[in-house]
């Protein structure tokens, strides 16, 4: 494995100042002007540090409300962490969210082009992969049908198929996805996931499923009450997590 750092998270902390919606008008205005003084303080993350190397499959695990989502939002650049911390990303980072920009009014064809370009593919690349995406999703007969006429299974297969053809340097996967479709489709999904995504790509994999983390990840970050604990050995990390949960 190349030891090139593609993501470096240094001293990332996040404190939210939450406004009480039932507060008086005066207090709400004050909390807008000076939130630190007049709004409720919620410490979501406390100084998280870790590095991700090219080709890493880093698992991220933690209880609900532990700060995982906040960390992902900071990594992807949706919100800033507190002052003093930094996130350095080398390359393009994409979260593989299924059916992110699906529009029921549009045909599958339009949705493939829209979602494909959002996932970083040029139109030429989408054209090249179009037949493969459609075939894999098993929707060849309905490619010009608006999505609102699709069953939920067809939608999920199409969403998964597009996501599996995405391009990025670092993938962020939040509760992946291999549970779509029947047994045959699941096997096909796992196969394509192993070949296209898991094979040599850098992945941050957030999950509550310890068996999936054990199967895919080579390192593990446990988030517990806003603190981050990095384990080079996944088994040790999972044991630590189990102890924290049961404590």
């Amino acid at each position: 494995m190349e030891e090139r750092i593609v993501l470096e998270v240094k001293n990332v902390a996040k404190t939210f100042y939450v406004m009480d919606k039932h507060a008086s008008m005066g207090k709400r205005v004050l909390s807008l002007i000076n939130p630190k003084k007049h709004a409720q303080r919620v410490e979501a993350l406390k100084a998280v540090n870790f590095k991700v190397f090219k080709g890493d499959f880093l698992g991220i695990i933690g209880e609900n409300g532990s700060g995982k989502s906040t960390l992902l939002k900071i990594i992807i650049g949706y919100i800033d962490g507190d002052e003093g911390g930094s996130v350095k990303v080398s390359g393009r980072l994409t979260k593989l969210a299924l059916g992110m920009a699906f529009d029921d009014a549009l045909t599958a064809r339009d949705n493939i082009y829209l979602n494909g370009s959002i996932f970083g593919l040029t139109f030429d690349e989408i054209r090249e992969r179009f037949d493969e995406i459609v075939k894999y999703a098993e929707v060849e007969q309905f490619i010009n049908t608006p999505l609102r006429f699709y069953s939920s299974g067809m939608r999920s297969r199409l969403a998964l198929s597009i996501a599996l053809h995405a391009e990025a340097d670092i993938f962020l996967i939040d509760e992946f996805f291999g549970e779509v479709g029947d047994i045959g489709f699941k096997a096909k999904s796992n196969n394509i996931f192993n070949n296209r995504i898991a094979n040599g790509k850098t992945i941050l994999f957030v999950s509550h499923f310890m068996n999936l983390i054990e199967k895919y990840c080579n390192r593990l970050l446990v988030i517990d009450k806003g603190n981050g604990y990095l384990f080079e050995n996944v088994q040790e990390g999972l044991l630590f997590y189990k102890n924290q949960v049961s404590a």
Partner: protein
Amino acid sequence: MTDRIFEFVERQLPKNNRIERIWKIAQVDFKRRYYNDVLGLLWALANPLSQIGLYYFIFTRIFKKEQENYVLYIFCGIILWLAFAEATRKGSLILKEKQYLMENIQFNWVDLYISHMLSITYGMIFNFFAYAIISLLYSNSYGTYFYLFPVVLLTWFLFGLAISIILSLLRPLFEDSFHIWNILLNIGFWSSGIFYSGSYFFENYTWFSYINPFVGVILNARACLLENNELYPFWLIYNFLFAAVFLVVAIIIFKKNIKKITEKI
């Protein structure tokens, strides 16, 4: 028909993911607005046409306004104004509506506003086709300064983009900003020279022409599209620069504050 036009333009685009994504989001937003309706794109025409008919009746029959090609005279202004109003009202919601993209994909968020303005521009271009047809019925040849029309359109685009950015930043913090903006749009509608010549403001309230670029935009649009209408070169340049500088300021404010706003959404 529109699909073929879109496909044709799509093929001409540079092979660049960013440009293609901006184009695709704009195209999808445009389709989403009209494709579910039975009459589809005709609705893009219905609103301006109904308003033009109404105002034409009121001004020519009730107020006895006498003006050559008055339908076209109103049409020019109303297309630009209604598209601007739609762009800014919907633009104020971009951060909320496109949150799912911002949360999941790394890209320049200003692109969302460009896509939004493009999708509004498609509808406006469709209206200008209708204008061209009506113009033929009135045997109106285009204005002497037709070649300057892209400058007017670009000014409109930049100004709409800048206002959309500012409003979208304000709205999550201060929902009332939407109501304030609606009042300002109402004032602007009657004070931008849609039904009369905005040169009145140049002569009597010059300061107002400086802060409301639409006075000059509508006058110069008429100089481009209608016969015998005077061009105001100073206002053409001033408005363009005003919109460009305003956009730069809006982008700076956006970059500086956006992460504080996304926390509130």
